[in-house]
């Protein structure tokens, strides 16, 4: 071995920062595993990760935690202070890897004598730089997709002509296929090429292999040159759809042994030749008519796929990779499941897993819904079964978009099925279902989609079963064998009920119970199986479980001792529910375990720490539907169930579980219902004399107009049935209201619309708290930087609040106390308030942990979930003596947006949430905390030129101060028409630039963005509707597409500008979390 193994004393781990499309929770899982591996060796650990909601940034996981941006500048400053002797680059996604490569190239690692653990940086660069990569693989006769690296659009076009269209272009060094896409012709190439060049100085043009299979291998290599492939995976969708956008199964299903071994051998050959030490992902394109292949890419780091492979097999890749980085051989490590056999082996799977992406494209105005070579999904689920049908139907329910499986869903309206099959969107799997129903054959669908016939045939099996059940109209008439057959194919009780009863299914809950009771009477119940890495060959005391109908025997002996406490997890990451609920779930599990109870987790998100089987006593990697949760409860016979730490999915089960006499720990289902039900909650507030924005549930346009007359515009409109686009909208006048209701929603007796008064320029305030028997024990009040109107998940949040009246705080405390008492709250809860002057109004109340629980827990340094869990379990608790008024520092939670990946989406904030992640940073004052957090979500302090188009009169006025400061600091201001006029009138020099609609005049705003002459864009939309004028849209979109920082909210712009004008980046203090006392 070339690399000498050092005895490390202190190791630095780079995290991946905020969750974003292409880089999500999987890196919390990998990083946490790596830190655990270091800890086991007694090595001190330092973590840099501004993502405060992660498990890895919790107390005790790393010795020192820095909530700072993962950028070369900040990492160097931490290195300077901490002096680690080793660094881990492979556990924080592309962010950490790029940062590490940059530190290596600039000589920082050498300067401080820091050794990179695991794969050497040169090997990383060999895999990242396309040209080096192809050369490297040529040396060992491994075929790659030949691409031509170019630095201009002109050269890209020349290369494409030589290769022949269609071609794919990619930006070098970009995460998750950012800035890549297919081009069928020159025109498309010019558009995409230009964009790709804005992300990277180099773009790659290659021949498209659309329609080939896409296969992945996860390979581990140690310093003794021993290699294993832990898992192989096959994409259901053919090449052309990014693997993050594809349904993926493990192991491969349509490959023969000879094909698998060929690719396996190639993967190992590559890994050996490149010199990986640790974990590596190899992606292949594989011909459908021969054993021809191409290597697509190699990721010399832990990845989304490796997290999936770990969860799919039970093999802890990140943990093992970290140990290998320390110099261990695979043979020297144990299999974490069997604990007796070595880690040098390849898992034998005796089930199939199916990963399905979760998209939230409906949240974005104007977004391109077609799937392609760039990733747009925000989360994923993994379903486990013993037939493909079972796994995929489970998975389609898990993605949580109102679907019940492959069949028996709400009818989709698809005008052109051929087109929808050929140009796939996020709905593609349901289009296949519909196509089958309309008589398309497996072959026809194969021709249009290029999905392997095997998968399609299996899907068709589901259709056949559905049609057979549909010949019955009474649940009692369905023959036992057919019922069992359907369950083996993953049909839910709901699907069976709907197939039988069709439109006669009036009471859903009753119908489900009828199916459930009938099949239980027939002995048709699921069995529990273990994931043991060795297909039952060796005994394993594994607690990693799933349920299936394809079996006759449970792998687990249930004691029925009532010592289990089930914690329901949060499901797929999505916009609005993400890693923060994983943190809550993990902390609830830890508390349950610490108190000597058996902690049981139900969750199905492979990107989480809560689905790490080390985190609990029993992990059911399965659905969070009423049906499945009841199945598990009937097996576990638990002491109780906690459903207030996993977000809205578990919370929604409260009433139905309660009806089955399930012991819900904490606040009762009755009270949860009183908070969730708008009418009940509202009348309770009225009784308590607590103010709320006026609202009404209405069923006709006339009624809506009457209500608007009463409260005045703007109003917030929430339809109960959404046709397309966002579910909520703010309307400022009659025409907007009509347009929204006509285009986006249906108003009728069946589909009422909730209209609320919208209070402008009000502050939004959150209260996160824990109560016991209606008494508040612990609370955190935080304020939004933005005025109400920006979704609380997108808002920048300050804790403790710095600009609230004491009077307001006192009122909020009082109101919260009244609500806690009235709802007999025992456990976590969150209330959102509006405050204007000193009047406060309650917007909503959730009797569960909220998104900001990890943030306030970590800033205040009191674990809200631990306390809440103790309360829910009836354990003695003490009211913490400390509160937020004692803090000498400020926390800022800022949101991360992924607009750059969502082509054409309008990057504007509104009442519907759009951010994919967040960071939380701590500073001595607001400015420092704002600056740290904004830099952490990708903003840069502008160098000299700033473009302002600052919306309506109020917003213009609100930003006047900031504009003056910028001017005084020597920034050059550029402004569009009205803003320019306003600045001039107020004596602030600015250069006038023209809107896209004034195309013939110079200088053009778009041209300046295109030429990268602008360092920051502040573009405030004039009104609150999402359909802004196309001028503003074009400027915002251009800023995103050319990777120029953009702010669309006046209050946030003001805060950011004041922050970077009042202090420079090098004045930012490098303080670890524990230094804030």
């Amino acid at each position: 071995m070339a690399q000498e193994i050092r005895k490390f004393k202190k190791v630095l781990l780079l995290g991946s920062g905020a969750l974003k499309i292409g880089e999500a929770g999987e890196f919390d899982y990998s990083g946490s595993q790596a830190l655990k591996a270091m800890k086991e060796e007694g090595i001190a650990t330092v973590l840099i990760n501004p993502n405060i909601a992660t498990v890895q940034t919790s107390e005790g996981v790393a010795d020192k935690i820095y909530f700072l941006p993962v950028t070369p500048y900040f990492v160097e400053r931490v290195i300077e202070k901490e002096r680690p002797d080793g660094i881990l680059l492979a556990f924080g996604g592309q962010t950490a890897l790029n940062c590490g490569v940059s530190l290596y190239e600039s000589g920082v690692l050498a300067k401080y004598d820091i050794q990179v653990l695991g794969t050497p940086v040169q090997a990383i660069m060999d895999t990242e730089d396309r040209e080096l990569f192809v050369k490297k693989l040529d040396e060992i006769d491994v075929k790659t997709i030949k691409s031509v690296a170019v630095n201009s659009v002109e050269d890209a076009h020349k290369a494409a002509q030589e290769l022949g269209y269609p071609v794919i272009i990619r930006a070098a060094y970009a995460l998750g296929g950012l800035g890549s896409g297919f081009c069928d012709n020159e025109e498309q190439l010019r558009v995409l090429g230009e964009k790709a060049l804005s992300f990277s100085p180099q773009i790659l043009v290659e021949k498209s292999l659309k329609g080939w299979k896409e296969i992945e291998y996860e390979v581990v290599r140690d310093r003794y040159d021993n290699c294993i492939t832990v898992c192989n995976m096959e994409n259901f969708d053919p090449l052309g759809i990014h693997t993050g956008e594809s349904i993926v199964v493990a192991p491969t299903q349509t490959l023969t042994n000879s094909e698998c071994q060929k690719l396996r051998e190639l993967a190992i050959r590559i890994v050996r030749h490149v010199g990986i030490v640790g974990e590596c992902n190899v992606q292949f394109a594989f011909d459908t008519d021969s054993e021809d292949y191409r290597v697509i890419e190699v990721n010399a780091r832990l990845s989304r796929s490796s997290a999936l492979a770990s969860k799919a097999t039970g093999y802890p890749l990140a943990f093992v990779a970290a140990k290998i980085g320390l110099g261990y051989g695979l043979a020297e490590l144990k299999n974490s499941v069997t604990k007796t056999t070595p880690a040098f082996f390849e898992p034998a799977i005796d089930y199939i897993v199916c990963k399905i992406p979760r998209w939230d494209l409906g949240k974005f105005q104007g977004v391109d819904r077609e799937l392609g070579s760039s990733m747009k999904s925000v989360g994923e689920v993994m379903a486990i079964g013993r037939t493909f049908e079972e796994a995929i139907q489970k998975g389609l329910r898990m993605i949580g978009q109102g679907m019940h499986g492959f069949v028996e869903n709400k009818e989709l309206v698809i005008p052109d099925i051929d087109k929808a099959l050929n140009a796939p969107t996020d709905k593609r799997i349901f289009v296949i279902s519909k196509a089958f129903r309309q008589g398309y054959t497996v072959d026809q669908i194969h021709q249009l989609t290029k999905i392997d016939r095997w998968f399609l045939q299996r899907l068709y099996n589901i259709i056949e079963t559905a049609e057979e059940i549909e010949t019955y109209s009474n649940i009692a008439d369905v023959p036992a064998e057919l019922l069992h057959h359907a369950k083996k194919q993953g049909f839910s009780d709901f699907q069976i009920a709907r197939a039988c009863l069709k439109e006669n299914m009036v009471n859903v809950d009753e119908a489900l119970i009828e199916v459930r009771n009938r099949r239980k009477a027939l002995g048709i119940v699921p069995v529990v199986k273990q994931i043991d890495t060795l297909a039952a060959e060796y005994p394993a005391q594994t607690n990693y479980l799933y349920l299936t109908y394809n079996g006759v025997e449970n792998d687990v002996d249930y004691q029925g001792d009532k010592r289990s406490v089930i914690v329901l997890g949060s499901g797929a990451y999505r916009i609005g529910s993400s890693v923060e609920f994983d943190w809550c779930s993990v902390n609830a599990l830890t508390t349950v375990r610490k108190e000597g109870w058996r902690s049981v987790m139900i969750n199905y998100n492979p990107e989480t720490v809560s689905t790490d089987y080390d985190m609990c006593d029993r992990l059911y990697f399965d659905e969070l539907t009423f049906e499945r949760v009841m199945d598990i409860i009937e097996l576990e016979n638990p002491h109780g169930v906690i459903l207030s730490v996993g977000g809205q999915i578990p919370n929604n089960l409260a009433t139905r579980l309660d009806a089955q006499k399930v012991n819900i720990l904490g606040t009762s289902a009755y009270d949860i219902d009183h908070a969730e039900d708008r009418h009940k909650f509202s009348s309770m507030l009225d009784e308590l004399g607590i103010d709320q924005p006026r609202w009404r549930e209405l069923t006709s346009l006339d009624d809506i107009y009457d209500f608007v007359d009463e409260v005045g515009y703007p109003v917030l409109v929430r339809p109960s049935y959404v046709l397309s686009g966002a579910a909520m909208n703010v309307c400022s006048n009659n025409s907007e209201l009509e347009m929204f209701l006509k285009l986006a929603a249906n108003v009728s007796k069946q589909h009422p619309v909730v209209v609320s008064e919208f209070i402008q320029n009000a502050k939004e305030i959150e209260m996160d708290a824990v109560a016991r028997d209606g008494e508040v024990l612990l609370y955190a009040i935080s304020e939004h930087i933005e005025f109400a109107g920006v979704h609380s998940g997108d808002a920048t949040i300050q804790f403790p609040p710095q600009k609230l009246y004491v009077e307001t705080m006192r009122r909020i405390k009082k109101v919260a106390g009244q609500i806690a008492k009235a709802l007999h709250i025992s456990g976590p809860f969150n209330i959102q308030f509006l405050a204007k002057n000193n009047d406060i109004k309650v917007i909503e109340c959730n009797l569960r942990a909220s998104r900001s629980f990890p943030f306030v827990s970590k800033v205040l340094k009191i674990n809200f979930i631990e306390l809440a869990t103790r309360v829910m379990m009836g354990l003695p608790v003490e009211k913490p003596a400390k509160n937020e008024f004692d803090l000498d520092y400020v926390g800022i939670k800022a949101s991360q947006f992924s607009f750059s990946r969502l082509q054409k989406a309008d990057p504007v904030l509104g009442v519907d949430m759009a951010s994919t992640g967040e960071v939380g940073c701590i500073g001595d004052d607001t400015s420092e905390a704002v600056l740290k957090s904004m830099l952490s979500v990708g903003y840069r302090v502008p160098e000299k030129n700033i473009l302002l188009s600052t919306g309506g009169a109020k917003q213009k006025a609100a930003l006047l101060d900031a504009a003056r400061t910028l001017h005084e600091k020597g920034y050059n201001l550029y402004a569009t028409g009205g803003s320019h006029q306003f600045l001039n009138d107020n004596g602030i020099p600015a250069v006038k630039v023209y809107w896209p609609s004034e195309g013939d005049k110079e200088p053009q705003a778009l041209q300046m963005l295109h030429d990268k002459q602008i360092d920051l864009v502040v573009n405030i939309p004039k009104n609150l509707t999402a359909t802004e004028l196309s001028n503003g849209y074009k400027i915002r979109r251009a800023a995103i597409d050319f990777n120029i920082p953009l702010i669309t909210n006046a209050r946030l712009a003001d805060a950011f500008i004041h922050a970077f004008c009042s202090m420079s980046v090098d004045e930012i203090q490098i303080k670890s979390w524990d230094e804030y006392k």
Partner: protein
Amino acid sequence: MRTLKSASLILEDGTIFRGKSFGYDKSVAGEVVFNTAMTGYPESLTDPSYKGQLLVFTYPIIGNYGVPANKLVDNLSLYYESENIHVNAVIISDYSFEYSHWNADKTLAQWLQEEKITGIFDIDTRALTKHLREKGAMSGKIVIEGCEDVEIVDHNSRNLVAEASCKEVMEYGAGNKRVVMVDCGVKHNIVRCLLERNVSVVRVPWDYDYSHINYDGLFITNGPGNPDLCEPTVENIRKTIADNSKPIFGICMGNHLLAKAAGAKTYKLKYGHRGHNQPVREVGTNRCYITTQNHGFAVDEATLGSDWAPLYVNMNDNTNEGIRHKSRPYLSAQFHPEASSGPTDAEVLFDDFVKLL
């Protein structure tokens, strides 16, 4: 839903698993063993080492890519490991009635029916595997609805090697070197691996006296059943060792028989090693292989003569995985360096052997 005949697997301890028939409708008996590989059913079914066994696949979904055509080129099968299926029955969880693969010729069911081999599915193969793991490999029978019942028989006393071996001498290739291959039930890929390395092969029956043949090395193949029933082969190997010191290489049964010739004893494992993921270490080194295995017996290392040493060890249960002579070019592997099916990591052992010739 398809209407299919019901079928029962009845183990010798009386345990019953119920499923459905998808192969040839015939009741059949045999030793029930499990294989944890996730691919490679055409290779496994034609592997002579499975002769007479009722083979359980722990991977639940089988038949996905159909079965390739049985093409023989120069007396070697192109895609199979021998000319026909050797298992007595296939036991799986979820059968793929439709397959999808460019190289497929028929469904697994069609193949089983052509070869008159029983196949059942809808069995909880994990529960069955756990049962075999706990209780040990055991005999059993499959009874198909409407078919004549059969008796459970103990195959341990049956000389399966004699049944699986070729009946006459066959020659392959015209290489630089010549190897005599004692066929105990050889997988075709062993022959292919030698031919690829420019070695010609004289394949002889298991009990054939090859001493009159002019050769550069001796190869003892894999094969089914109990090594104790192959005394004639062991005797031939003993004679060879006494006569000359030409290189010898054994695989699987070959390892047993070489060990027996070296004076060692073999014993039956509780449930054997069958799969693609068996970790093996070369003794005294850090060199490790992921190997394909298929054996129910093992060499008792403690009984090896003083001239011999263990060469490989199984990293899961520390059983013997190969032996070597301390001074002569004799070596053997319990695992399958020819793979097929399974990982090809250990194919380098053929290179090592050919270098010795």
